């Protein structure tokens, strides 16, 4: 998350022509690339490049939950592990999992759990592991974006894909998808979100920094508006691997069928 540098020099975060430090518009995402099935040994996997961020995600399971006392007789449990490679940050990161990684793993796993029909797989574990190979702000939302595609690749029935997006504020401007330089603004607000775009639900939401209620409501609108782009890229990537002739790869239809098949 953003760390205040305390530097006094004034930086213009959005210039007169509406361009940001890296040339983007205020509501423009960085370039995002989604690939499906990048780890042959895994049950499902995905790779996401999001600006400079590079994330690998794998899914193993549903499989027997070990140790057994963690198993839930009513549903599968999701074990989400978010880790950053030692070389993924400007300094070297101690490879020992830090408090930040543990917290992110917890809330991200809970976010994914909402999307999965866990009741179908009692007593099992679904292990989702994501590794950040390179980072420049917004890694947790890139990681969730990759993880949910990996879950779909593993054939796990889901209510919706989980699409991540960051919104926030720098230099007094509300921005979409902040990069590191923007997160380091003295007045920076960083709001990672994960959304189920089709259901219109928020499954991950964090904020740090100072923001008014009005600014938040505006930011939330921006997030919902622009997360659609992430969602489209996720679907495109899945279609690229799975759409075959005679099959439109219409996942909404698949999701509806899955929904109807479940007794709740």
């Amino acid at each position, binding site marked *: 998350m953003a760390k205040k540098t305390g530097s006094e020099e004034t930086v213009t975060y959005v210039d007169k022509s509406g361009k940001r430090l890296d040339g983007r518009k205020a509501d423009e995402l960085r370039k995002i690339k989604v690939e499906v099935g990048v780890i042959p040994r895994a049950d499902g996997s995905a790779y996401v490049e999001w600006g400079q961020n590079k994330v690998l995600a794998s899914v193993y399971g549903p499989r027997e939950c070990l140790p057994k006392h963690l198993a839930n007789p009513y549903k599968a449990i999701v074990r989400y592990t978010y880790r950053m490679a030692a070389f993924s940050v400007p300094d070297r990161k101690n490879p020992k999992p830090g408090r930040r990684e*543990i917290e992110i793993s917890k*809330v991200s796993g809970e976010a994914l*759990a909402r999307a999965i029909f866990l009741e179908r797989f009692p007593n099992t574990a679904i292990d989702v592991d994501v590794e950040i190979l390179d980072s420049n702000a917004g890694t947790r939302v890139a990681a969730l974006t990759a993880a949910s595609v990996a879950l779909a690749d593993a054939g796990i029935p889901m209510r919706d894909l989980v699409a991540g997006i960051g919104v926030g504020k720098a230099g007094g401007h509300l921005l979409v998808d902040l990069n590191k330089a923007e997160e380091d603004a003295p007045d920076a607000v960083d709001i990672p979100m994960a959304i189920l775009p089709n259901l219109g639900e*928020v499954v991950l*939401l964090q904020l740090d920094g*100072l923001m*008014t209620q009005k600014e*938040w409501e505006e930011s939330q609108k921006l997030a919902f508006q622009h997360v659609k782009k992430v969602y489209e890229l996720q679907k495109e990537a899945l279609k690229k691997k799975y759409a075959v002739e005679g099959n439109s790869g219409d996942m909404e239809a698949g999701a509806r069928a899955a929904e109807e098949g479940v007794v709740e």
Partner: protein
Amino acid sequence: MSQILWNLSADKVLATLREGKRSDGRKFDEYRPVQVIKNVSENADGICRIKLGQTDVVAGIKMIPGEPFPDTPDAGTISVGAELLALADPTFEAGPPREGSIELSRVVDRGIRESNCLDFKSLCIREGELVWVVFIDIYVLNFDGNLFDACALAALIALQDTKIPKLDDKDKPVKGEFAGKLKLARKPVMCTFVKVGNSVVVDPSLAEEKALDARFSVTTTEDDFISAFQKGGEGAFSPEEINKCVALAFKKGKELRKQYCE
């Protein structure tokens, strides 16, 4: 209570909420009574014990001179730790912090740090050499739901009462002597909501937490800023629910601040 009994209790909580009531009779936007107990430890530089219903937590402050971070040579810092003591709940175990207590301490930290209520520059003793590190250590003594709000409130009140130790010429604190009080520019107060079924209630009891689908914490300041959010739990919120929670967090934050932080 075993997990099976909690599952039954969760069904009851949900059924009661569907009737528009809470299992302990509170309104959906009503906090349990708060009791503030001060002077729990003479060795702490600031201290506050909070009882929120039967939830019982104590936050103690220690001001320790330490080295600044290389990227902020002229700024002090805070460090928040939350310990879910084994004596507080049958499911808490001794040992290194787990994800529950790590999340708790990081969310309390975020609310305080990001509100800029502490002027970190004023906590600089000698630039590049020595700064104050404000250690906020929180212990949970009895767990009856909503640790987030109880811990955040205890930490805030303890900070308000914190005295800065006087340092001798070897930079060691002089016992019993102080160089003034810690100054707080704002009072960040956290409000936590849980969603059970389609109902959203504030200040969840333990039974409500065991039944929760999702949890949402909002930290607000008296000058109308949000300083932290944290969503938890395996459920989801609609954008409208989130906006309602934020609005209510401002209202409840004001009430709590007025009653317990002035």
